[in-house]
Each structure stands twice: as structure tokens, then as C-alpha cells.
């Protein structure tokens, strides 16, 4: 077996080697910004489709209840989009403010993706404004058509940014000549081989998160005894989406795992904490990785080999096949991966229970526990989402560009990061308060306020 070398060819940063004593703080700042932005953008990815679906129901049936719901949801969409815009702007600034050497060295390789993304943001902003402010201005059909570009822009916007992330995990589209980046091929960088599983996994995650969060809101009303047609409709639309998306995540996640096994074996080893290269590697549910082995937890023999290669006896390279300085922090990655898979399993089971009940009895499940779990699924799905990103991003450490540039080399040399951290923390807290306040105010108004027509809230 050959020894693994991750460092394909180290790149000299275009701005030299930075001195940064607060690297950890810079990383935390970046993480904090993502933790705020990514749950919001799920709504940019998946919510427009739900809104259009409900509006379509209105156009087909003429039932004003659907119009009231679509209109109400479109306002939520606008508010979350606005906050997505400002939090995305923070991220765009942070690219340069926190990682100038990374940008200076590789901006010309992967920047194209962000350039294209900019145009999908334009499209999204323009059509969202027309859609939300144009309810009374356009005929129903034209209004529905105006929503279509929003759905498309949700896909292209996340496609491009994920392309960059895929590239950071599996760089392509350049050569290293004498420590410098050369022969740049921006299209090869754009369509790197990690793009596709990340895109689809994230896209489906968007539907899982939106379905669970919206479902949780209506499930709470349901548990409190409000079971009119409005609540019921919202519940069914949202939960159906989540129930269909959650099991798919299993299949895509498996694909993601195999891709990681092929391209980033050390990250895969960190999913479990495989110290030495092993045939038929097992997985432990729970437990802690310590001094080269997992302590505690339930052992699933050969499960990791099965996940990685679909072969129970496959060889899994261990962490020790690279220098200690090239290994990611195992327990963070391990714990995040387990949290994502555990929650993914729970959500998939919940979804299957819902679909089966519907199939067999043509009704919603009756158990209060189903609704309690639904309420929990809202926050849980967000945890799974963030845990997944933690798996990917912390699993990539210590590299910012896997195998080519270390995070410590891409970082800024500026001081005073602590102040920036505190300021941005305050900004994010204020933003969170603002969102909650706005959405609560919106929710306090009866759905009847949205339309002139009388709403039929009692079941026929």
C-alpha cells in the first residue's frame, strides 16, 4: 500500500505567509456567519416552489384560502430573502476581510462561479419584488409565471456557491508551477467533481428543512387545538414535502460518502476515527475518539467499509497515514456526521410513517406524538443541516484548498479580530430578534386579512 500524500503541491500565497495569532477566532467568525446564512438560504432554495404550488392550487380551484396562504407565505419569503441578502453580503465581504491570501491566490480560479451567482441574485431580487408587490397588479396566471424565475434562481444561486465549496474540497482547473498557480481553466474549476453530490444533497436538504420548519409551525397550532382548513392545508403541504425529501437524503448521503472516500480519504477516516488503515472498518454509534481508537458507543462491524465502498471488506485508509499536522479534528467531524445521520434517519422514519398513513387511510396521523415529533423536526432539521456542513468543512481542515493551501496560509494578517467577532455577534443577534419579531407580527394577523374574499375555514 502506498503512503498517502495529501499535499499535492504546496502553493505559495500571492500575498506571502500571513502571521495570524487568532486563526481559531477567524474560523469561528466564518462559522458563525455560515450558521446564520445557511438555514436562511434553505428558504431561498425550496420555499418559492411551495408558494407557487399553493398559488397553483388557488388558480385551479378558485378557493381563496389558497390565495391567502400563498400571499402570506410570499411575505415570509420576502422577509427571509431580505435577511438572506444582508447575511450573504456579510459573507461576501468576509471572503476578502478574513481570507485575503486565499482570494488573492485563487480568486481567478474559482471566481467565475460567484460572478454567475451574482446574476442569479439579480434575477431573484427582481422577480421576488415583482411577485410579492404585484399580487394585485397581475392576472393570476402571469403572477404565477413571475414566480418561476425565483425558483430557478434559487437553484442557480446555490449551484454556484456550492461549486466553490466543491472546488475547495476537490480542487481542479489549475496547475502549480514553481509554487505558483498557473494554466487556469475556470470551467474545469466550476464543474469540479464534488459539485454534484454537494449540490443535490444541499438542494434536498433545503426541502427537508423548509418542510420541517413550516410543518413544525402548523403542527404547533394543531397541538394547541387550532385545526381549521388553513392550518390543515399548511401542514399537509409542508409535511408532504419533508416526507418525500427526507428518505431521498439517505441515497444522496450515501453517494456523498463514497465520493469523500475516493477523494478525501482522511476526511472519511475522521467520520469514524479510523487511526490505522483497516480492512472491513467498523462504525461506532456514539462514543468518543481518543488516542487512536473509539471508546464507548455501539459497534457496527464493517459498516464504514460498506458506506465507503459498498464492500464490507474494503480498505479504509487511516488517519495515521498522514502527518499529524494534516489531520482534521476527529471528534468534531465524527460527532457532526453522527448527528446528521441520526437526525436524517429519524426524519426519514417520520416521513415514511406519514406517507404510509396517508396511503392506507387517506388521513393525517392521529397520535399526538406524531405532531410533537413534527414540532421537534423543525429545529432538528436545521441541526442536521449545520452538522452536515460541519462534517464537510471541518473535515476538510487543516486545508482551505484541499491539498494545496492551508487555512493558516489563506487567512488575513490583520489584528483586532476579537472586536470584529463581537460586533458581528451583536449584528446577528439583532437580526435574529428582528426576524422573530417580524414573523410573529405577521402570524398574529388572521389569514383573512390577506384577501377580500370570505375564507372557508371549516371543513365542508
Amino acid at each position, binding site marked *: 500500500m502506498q503512503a498517502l500524500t495529501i499535499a499535492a503541491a504546496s502553493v505559495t500565497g500571492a500575498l506571502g505567509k500571513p502571521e495570524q495569532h487568532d486563526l481559531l477566532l477567524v474560523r469561528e467568525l466564518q462559522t458563525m456567519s455560515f450558521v446564520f446564512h445557511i438555514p436562511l438560504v434553505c428558504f431561498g432554495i425550496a420555499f418559492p416552489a411551495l408558494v407557487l404550488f399553493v398559488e397553483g392550487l388557488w388558480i385551479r380551484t378558485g378557493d381563496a384560502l389558497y390565495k391567502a396562504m400563498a400571499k402570506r407565505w410570499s411575505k415570509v419569503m420576502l422577509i427571509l430573502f431580505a435577511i438572506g441578502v444582508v447575511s450573504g453580503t456579510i459573507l461576501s465581504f468576509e471572503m476578502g476581510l478574513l481570507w485575503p491570501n486565499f482570494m488573492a491566490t485563487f480568486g481567478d480560479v474559482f471566481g467565475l462561479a460567484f460572478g454567475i451567482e451574482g446574476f442569479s441574485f439579480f434575477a431573484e431580487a427582481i422577480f421576488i*419584488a415583482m411577485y410579492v408587490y404585484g399580487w394585485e397588479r397581475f392576472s393570476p396566471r402571469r403572477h404565477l409565471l413571475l414566480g418561476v424565475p425565483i425558483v430557478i434562481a434559487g437553484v442557480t444561486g446555490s449551484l454556484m456557491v456550492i461549486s466553490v465549496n466543491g472546488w475547495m474540497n476537490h480542487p481542479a482547473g489549475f496547475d502549480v508551477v514553481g509554487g505558483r498557480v498557473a494554466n487556469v481553466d475556470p470551467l474545469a474549476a466550476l464543474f469540479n467533481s464534488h459539485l454534484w453530490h454537494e449540490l443535490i444533497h444541499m438542494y434536498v436538504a433545503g426541502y427537508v428543512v423548509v418542510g420541517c420548519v413550516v410543518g413544525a409551525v402548523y403542527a404547533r397550532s394543531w397541538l394547541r387545538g387550532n385545526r381549521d382548513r388553513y392550518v390543515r392545508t399548511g401542514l399537509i403541504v409542508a409535511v408532504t414535502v419533508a416526507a418525500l425529501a427526507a428518505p431521498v437524503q439517505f441515497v444522496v448521503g450515501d453517494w456523498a460518502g463514497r465520493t469523500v472516500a475516493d477523494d478525501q480519504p482522511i476526511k472519511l477516516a475522521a467520520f469514524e476515527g479510523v487511526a490505522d488503515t483497516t480492512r472491513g472498518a467498523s462504525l461506532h454509534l456514539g462514543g468518543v475518539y481518543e488516542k487512536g481508537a473509539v471508546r464507548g458507543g455501539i459497534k457496527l462491524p464493517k459498516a464504514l467499509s460498506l458506506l465507503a465502498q459498498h464492500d464490507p471488506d474494503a480498505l479504509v485508509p487511516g488517519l495515521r497515514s498522514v502527518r499529524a499536522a494534516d489531520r482534521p479534528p476527529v471528534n468534531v467531524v465524527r460527532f457532526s456526521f453522527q448527528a446528521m445521520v441520526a437526525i436524517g434517519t429519524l426524519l426519514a422514519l417520520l416521513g415514511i410513517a406519514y406517507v404510509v398513513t396517508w396511503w392506507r387511510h387517506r388521513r393525517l396521523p392521529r397520535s399526538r406524538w406524531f405532531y410533537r415529533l413534527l414540532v421537534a423536526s423543525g429545529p432538528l432539521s436545521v441541526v442536521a443541516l449545520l452538522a452536515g456542513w460541519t462534517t464537510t468543512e471541518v473535515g476538510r481542515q487543516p486545508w482551505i484548498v484541499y491539498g494545496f493551501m492551508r487555512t493558516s496560509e489563506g487567512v488575513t494578517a490583520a489584528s483586532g479580530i476579537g472586536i470584529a467577532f463581537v460586533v458581528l455577534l451583536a449584528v446577528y443577534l439583532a437580526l435574529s430578534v428582528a426576524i422573530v419579531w417580524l414573523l410573529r407580527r405577521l402570524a398574529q394577523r388572521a389569514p383573512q386579512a390577506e384577501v377580500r374574499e370570505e375564507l372557508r375555514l371549516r371543513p365542508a
Partner: protein
Amino acid sequence: MSLADVSLVLIAAGMTAYIVLAGADFGGGFWDLTAGGAQRGRPARELVQRSMGPVWETNHVWLIFILVLTWTAFPVAFGSAMSTLYVAGFLAVAGIVMRGTGFALRGQAASLPEARLLGAAFALSSVLAPFCLGAAAGAIGSGRVPVGNAAGDPWGSWLNPTGVLVGILAVLAGAYLAAVYLAADAERAGLDELRRAFRTRALGAGLVAGAVAIAGLFVLRGDAPALFEGLTSGAGLVCIVLSAIAGVTTLSLVWRGRFAAARYVAAAAVASVTAGWALAQYPQLLPGLTVSQAAAPHSTLVALLISAALGVLTIAPAQLALYRMAISGELSKPMESS
């Protein structure tokens, strides 16, 4: 013209669009700040919200456009500038965030007592963001941003005569543009009192901006001689003269109550200043770094420019349609019930 030059032109065009469009959104916040007490200031505030609510996100994307073009086409310059100007950058982004949130909240909060407190915070951010962005531009223009990772002075690079001057000009330009737009919108909505109020404000802001710009030339002569030299000779001078003519014209249009025309002429004034700045500095991007040295490789620029061209072709019609609807007041207020 090389591909790098084309990219630079595109960035300058994006900056012009951002100043003219989003600058006015910040300016709206400025007038919000100075509109007076809750009762008296209410009509003005509502007009700001109604005119700018539907378009601010689209206007804002121009900033993202500038950022991504710069980091792709001129990565070393981008990394150097952002790392040195990080204080201004963080403050600007905090201001932008508050301003954007302000738009979202105002639609809901307009009737509440909290609105005043919130309003003050948002309005202050409307001054903070353009000031910091302008000062950052001044830092680059006066050659205080060296190549390197946070190699320049994090405070002194932008808090100096040129930086402060450009920062103030950015705030004033936004205030002027906003007043012109709002006067036009008030006229269309038949709000005669507001029309007159914003006409007065536009004239005031325009005169102050003009005076500061003229005084600013003397500041530049002392503080940024190279930039001054570039702006007062050759093509740079042509741009400055054009801008001055446009500035006087737009003021006289406002005086005569021709607000729609005044908008476009004001945009021309901003565009010629931006172009003048670019020409004055050309070919230096940062000290010791020329446009061609800083440029991304050919393959990247080709791909970037092709995608930008396709993007503009697909987006422009939709954007124009949105502005047309917003200007003609056809878009309803979504946050209130129908």
C-alpha cells in the same frame, strides 16, 4: 483595450450603478433621519418606504457584482485592499445589514412607537455605510493601500483628508439623489407638499455636495497629489469638467421642477466622476501594481466577460421592467393587508 481594461470598465460601471441606485437608498435613510418627529415626519417616511421598498434588494446586488468582479478579475488587488481596509469594511457591512433590515422592518413597524428608535438606528446606518465605502475608495485613490496581506494602516489608510472627503461626498451624493427621486415620486403620487419639501432638500444637498466637491479639489492637491494631477489633466480633466456641467444642469433641472430628467443627468455626473477617478489612476491599481499586472489569466477573463455579457442581456430587461413599475407606483404595499 485589453480584457483587463474591459473588466475595469465593467467594475466602474457597476460602481456607478451602485452609487446612483443604492446610494439613493442610503440617502432615503438620511432623509428619514432628518424628517422630524413621528407625526410630522410620517408622510416623508412613508414615501421613502414606498419608493424604495421594492427595489433596494436589486440595487444592492450591484455591490455584490462589484465584489465578485473584482476578486475574480483582480484577485491580488482585492485581497490587498480588503485586508488593509478591514475596519472600514466591517463597519460598512454592519451599516448595510442594518439598512437592509430597516427596510424589512419598516414595512411592519411604521405605525409603532418602536419605529422611531428603530428608525434612528437604521438612519444612522444609512450614513455609516456610504461613508465607509467612500472612505475606502478614497484610501485606494490616494495610494494608501499597498500590495500585501493587511500591509497598510488599518485606520490611517481611510481616516485621512482624502478618505473623509470621499466619504462625505458619498453621503451627500446619496442624499441628493434620494431627494430628487423622492420629489419625482411625490409629484407622481400627487403629494404636492412632499414634492416641494424634497425639492428644497435636493437643492440644499446638491449645493452642499457641489461646494464640498470644489473644496475637495484643494484637499486632494495637498493630500493626494498624484490623484489630483490625474484629475486635473488630460482625460481625467475632461471627466471632471463633464461632471461639473452635469452637476450644474441637474441642479437647474431640479430648480425648474423637472425631476425625471434631473435623475438621469445626476447619474451622468456620478458616472463621469467614477470614470475620472479610474482614468486618473490608470494604469496603477494599487501602488506598484498596474491593471495588467493585477489581472487574472486570459482564460478567466474570457469566461468572466462572456458570462457577464450573457448575464446583463438576460437581467437588464427584467430590471428595467421592475424600475418602470416601481417608478410608476404600480407595485402595491405588500406588508399591509389588502
